[in-house]
């Protein structure tokens, strides 16, 4: 173990792979956030059937292991559905997105519950429709509570993308393993520990990037929230706030 760095050619290959990893993360995040919103709101529905279905989904998505879900998606689902040449990237992203949706729905449910009930009552008094209430009153306020755990969840999904190498996709982990095998075949002298250390550091940098984006979003939302509440809303006396 003489040098801890790889050469520029190797870093170039890893950079390409990193863009694929981010692509998988993007797809999974897009699906996950939609599922989180839909099922997080559905968990609070007035209809028992909708509530029950949403509960079943979140329990399923959180109870099953993400790697098992990934393998079911990649190997069992194409056969069950009769698609011989399924797009593995898409299936993997669906599996990760389904997994994220279960955790995200709980985050969104909790955040909606954290918005004071007076806000809902006020919007009912203002004759807002349910969708308007959610869109303009509840979710903007819930966003402050949603963002920090959602950032952590996104990092968990970024970590989860390493699993797609196990079904043969060329993400960061998959490419690293391939480079290790081919490097050994041509007598390369980079040891495995150096490869994996570098890989870990790349993942660390990526997740710090995600973290930074979410932190930036948080401070933006916070400053907007502070400005608006300062301009519009008179401070609510504490004793009224507590009386439900």
């Amino acid at each position, binding site marked *: *173990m003489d040098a801890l760095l790889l050469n520029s050619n190797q870093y170039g290959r890893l950079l390409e792979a990193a863009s694929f990893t981010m692509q998988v993360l993007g797809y999974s995040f897009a699906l996950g956030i939609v599922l989180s919103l839909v099922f997080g709101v559905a968990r609070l529905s007035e209809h028992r059937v909708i509530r029950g279905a949403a509960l079943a989904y979140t*329990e*399923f998505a*959180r*109870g*099953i*292991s*993400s*790697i*098992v*879900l990934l*393998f*079911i998606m990649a*190997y*069992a689902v194409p*056969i*069950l559905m009769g698609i011989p040449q399924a797009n593995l990237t898409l299936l993997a992203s669906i599996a990760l997105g389904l997994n994220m949706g279960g955790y995200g729905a709980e985050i969104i449910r909790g955040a909606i519950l954290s918005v004071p009930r007076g806000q809902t009552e006020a919007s009912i008094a203002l004759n807002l429709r349910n969708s308007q209430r959610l869109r303009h009153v509840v979710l903007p306020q819930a966003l402050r509570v949603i963002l920090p755990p959602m950032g952590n969840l996104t*990092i968990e999904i970024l*970590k*989860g*993308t*390493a*699993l797609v*190498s*196990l079904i043969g996709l060329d993400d960061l*982990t998959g490419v690293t*393993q391939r480079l*290790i095998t081919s490097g050994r075949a041509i007598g390369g002298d980079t*040891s*495995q*520990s*150096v*490869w*994996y*250390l570098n*890989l*870990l550091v790349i*993942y*660390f940098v990526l*997740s*710090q990037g995600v*973290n930074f984006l979410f932190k930036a979003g948080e401070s933006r939302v916070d400053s907007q929230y502070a400005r608006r509440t300062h301009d519009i809303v008179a401070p609510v006396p504490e004793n009224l706030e507590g009386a439900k």
Partner: protein
Amino acid sequence: MSATTAEAEMVDHRSPWRRPATWIAIGVALVVLVGLYLLGTRDVDFGTEVAPDPALKWDWAFVVSLLPDMLNALSITAFCTVYGFVVAVILGFFLAVGRRANAAWIRWPVTGFIEFIRSTPLLVQLFFLFFGLSAATGFNFSSNQALILGLGVHYATYCSEAYRAGINSVPDGQWEAATAMNLRPATTWWRVIIPQAIPNALPALGNYLVAGFKDAPLGFAINVTGLMFFATTIRAREFRPIEPFLLIGVGFLIVSLPAAWLIRRLERRISYERI
């Protein structure tokens, strides 16, 4: 720790070491640990004869014939999970204390270590432990050891956050009182802080046990003959992916859903007792 008067009369003033419940719990834990050790260190080869019916898309007889080998695989996964969690719970506590240390030369490396491990994939950490470390140092872990250590270190960083939250929830007055009574730091931790911090951390720790169980099948990437290894073996041998994968998927739900439910009950009970 306020309790109503009726409950206060029932408070057990004996030292924990003199309560039968403590010894029963320790005994149960030992039996589970030894049992899992005996089950989990066997060699399992999934050699049971199974014969899927190629005409059927879903063959129940095939599923039933898979069950014995699946239970063998489950014992290995459970063994690695539980022992990994033991590592995590112990190491996590020291990480939590290290992160609170006054000395910066302890606090900063511990914080950096926690952040690094938490934001990198367990899979790559396992590869590093199993392939990288042996190539670099000549020291070889077995598959099970690498998985237990990998899971343990990974979840130790999560557990340390749970402990940290638990320790932070102990009111400042308790620390001040301990100082006022001139207790040594070790006594303060052992007799004042830990008894109040651990119950608060328990539900989060339980959640991490379940999460660790869900991450344990990753071990198949480093040849741990657990549930995932079982499913991929059957898939490769019988060319039937549907039954084995759905079977272990259901298996995970059967274990993790009741576990999560129990933890929620525990959480509610603890928060109820704190009011």
